[in-house]
């Protein structure tokens, strides 16, 4: 079979001392920078991109891929330890991961995230190697109507992220969608809700919103609870999961890997939806669903696997179609063109050593990441022992520097401060922010595809139900609403009964 010959060629390319070294450097740098609050994969790759200019093309891409995985894993670490997600997909990890850390199980959470990512990475690399060409055909089947319906499904799935009231969670999603619309409208060039503030015409930054609503608001609420101040920081933490933990995380990792591998292929939002989707599936299918939001291990294992699987398979549209599915991949295109490689279907035939070498190095990168990070877990967990009165000013400093570096403007620092207050208000009103962030990320894409779909159908709204794939996705959304709403209806009935 060709696959093995190809993989052999790939490993031949990747297994040179030089390439292994660059892969290692990439992973180390990526992890160390990614673990700083506020510096997600995009910022990390953008900062380190110039460092790869001088390298030979294969080595440069291998190093960039290493940086990408490293920073993503580093971002999950911050999400678990400090409740500061650096990018969309780790928002989900923060929900239960941070609660596990508060229960003194930070080590187990980090171990689970690492193992889940490793397993998912291995499987997704194989998927990438075996099905890259046929899978890219799937992406062609997705027109604007299908994308819109997929996002509806994703957003409704996001409702599951909240543990409180269903209707308030839907409100948070819509609020996120609205916030995402702030800035210049791509179709007409009209600046919306920007009030002639030039910085707002580019929209609000994701990092600013996420750090404000999660990080800053969390600090303010923590400071209020004086006596609990150092409670969770001093609890003993081991990284060895119990038998029970292992039994619970394995199925979640398998499901997460499947979801991530499939959704990662879709250009635009696929990787972000993967983590959210995996969390929804875990919460709905688990018999421990009451533990979600309070530190359920499935809530870390599922999304982290999905996240990493999607990170691998999102290379498929890039390598086979030349379409970058997200901002990180767009940077990779930039790196490729600098080295005179035109991404697209011809890479596989014209430059097989590069194509298969990159795939092989993805697997090597995953191995290095786990070898690197298992010993590091002990150090990360020790960081939690720093008294909170020293810790939170440090978090603020890193957040302020991080958010400033995204666009080199202090305006983003003010936006973060404002969202800190807004996030604090949300906690007081019992509105949970994770659904808001997904809405915020998908808002512009959703409007874009909605408009395009209706443009193609000449204003006919039935286009969303006459196209079979789109209809299927909408039916799935409707089913999801029913599944989500049923227990809620039952619960209010029970409450009413108790009050009588």
């Amino acid at each position: 079979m060709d696959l093995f010959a190809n993989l052999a060629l790939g490993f031949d390319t990747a297994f040179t001392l030089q390439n292994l070294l660059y892969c290692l450097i990439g992973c180390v740098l990526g992890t160390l920078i990614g673990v700083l609050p506020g510096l997600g994969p995009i910022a990390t790759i953008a900062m380190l991109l110039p460092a790869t200019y001088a390298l030979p093309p294969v080595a440069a891409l291998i190093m960039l891929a290493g940086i990408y995985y490293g920073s993503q894993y580093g971002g999950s670490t911050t999400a678990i330890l400090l409740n500061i997600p650096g990018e969309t997909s780790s928002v989900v990890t923060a929900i239960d991961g941070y609660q596990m850390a508060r229960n003194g199980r930070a080590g187990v959470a980090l171990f689970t995230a690492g193992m889940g990512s490793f397993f998912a990475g291995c499987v997704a690399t194989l998927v990438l190697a075996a099905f890259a060409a046929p899978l890219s055909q799937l992406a062609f089947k997705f027109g604007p109507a299908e994308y819109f319906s997929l996002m509806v499904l994703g957003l409704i799935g996001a409702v599951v992220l909240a543990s409180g009231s269903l209707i308030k969670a839907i409100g948070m999603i819509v609020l996120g969608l609205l916030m995402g619309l702030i800035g210049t409208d791509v179709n007409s060039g009209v600046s919306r809700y920007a009030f002639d503030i030039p910085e707002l015409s580019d929209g609000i930054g994701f990092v600013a919103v996420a750090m404000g609503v999660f990080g800053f608001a969390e600090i303010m609420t923590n400071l209020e609870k004086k006596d609990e101040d150092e409670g969770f920081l001093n609890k003993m933490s081991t990284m060895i999961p119990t038998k029970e933990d292992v039994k619970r995380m394995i199925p979640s990792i398998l499901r997460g890997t499947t979801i991530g591998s499939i959704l990662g292929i879709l250009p635009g939002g696929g990787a972000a939806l993967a983590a959210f989707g995996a969390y929804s599936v875990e919460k709905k299918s688990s018999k421990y669903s009451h533990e979600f939001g309070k530190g359920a291990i499935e809530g870390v294992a599922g999304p982290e696997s999905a996240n990493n699987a999607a990170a691998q398979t999102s290379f498929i549209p890039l390598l086979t179609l030349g379409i970058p599915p997200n901002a990180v991949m767009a940077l990779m295109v930039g790196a490729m063109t600098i080295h005179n490689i035109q991404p697209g279907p011809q890479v596989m035939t014209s430059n097989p050593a590069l194509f298969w070498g990159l795939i092989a190095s993805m697997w090597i990168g995953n191995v290095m990441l786990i070898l690197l990070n298992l010993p590091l877990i002990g150090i990360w967990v020790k960081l939690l022992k720093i008294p909170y009165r020293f810790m939170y000013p440090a978090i603020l400093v890193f957040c302020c520097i991080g958010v400033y570096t995204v666009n080199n403007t202090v305006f983003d620092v003010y936006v973060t401060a404002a969202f800190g207050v807004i996030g604090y208000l949300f906690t007081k009103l019992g509105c949970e922010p994770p659904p808001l962030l997904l809405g915020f990320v998908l808002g512009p894409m959703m409007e874009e595809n909605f408009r395009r779909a209706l443009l193609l159908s000449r204003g006919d709204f039935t286009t969303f139900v006459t196209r079979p794939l789109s209809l299927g996705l909408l039916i799935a959304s409707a089913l999801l609403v029913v599944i989500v709403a049923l227990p809620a209806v039952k619960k209010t009935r029970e409450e009413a009964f108790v009050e009588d």
Partner: protein
Amino acid sequence: MKIRNQRDFGAGIMYMVIGLFFTIMATQYPMGTAAKMGPGYFPFFLGIIMTLLGLFVLIRSLSAKAAIESIPKFNWRIIGLITGSVVLYGILLPTMGFIVAVFVLVFMSASASHEFHWKGTLVNASFLIIFTYSVFVVGLKLQFPLLPFFLQQ
């Protein structure tokens, strides 16, 4: 009429205010038609959905079946110190430079804790300045104004 669930009541008001704001603002942008949507179309209807959701949450909070919940108190001192320290950092960074800005940020935010002690905070601030300087300025070569404007060459 008694407000049974004050948290939901507050959330409902917030949703409605935001929804109405987006809808009213959207009327200032061209609406277009479904086939050729203008920039106002999507936000207009999304704002209406937001307002309706708010209204629903609001009405539900008044119903006799709603759980009794009150909004927890706001700690204005903590909000002021934390948010203020971040805003001050933003104001100080361009003129007074990185070192002063980080120093002020650490001191002001640390004073929000009931365990605040100036000696410990001084050590923490110095450590953070050295650490962030070596990581961001030396290591990652990011451009910051380092010193106050009157000390720059």
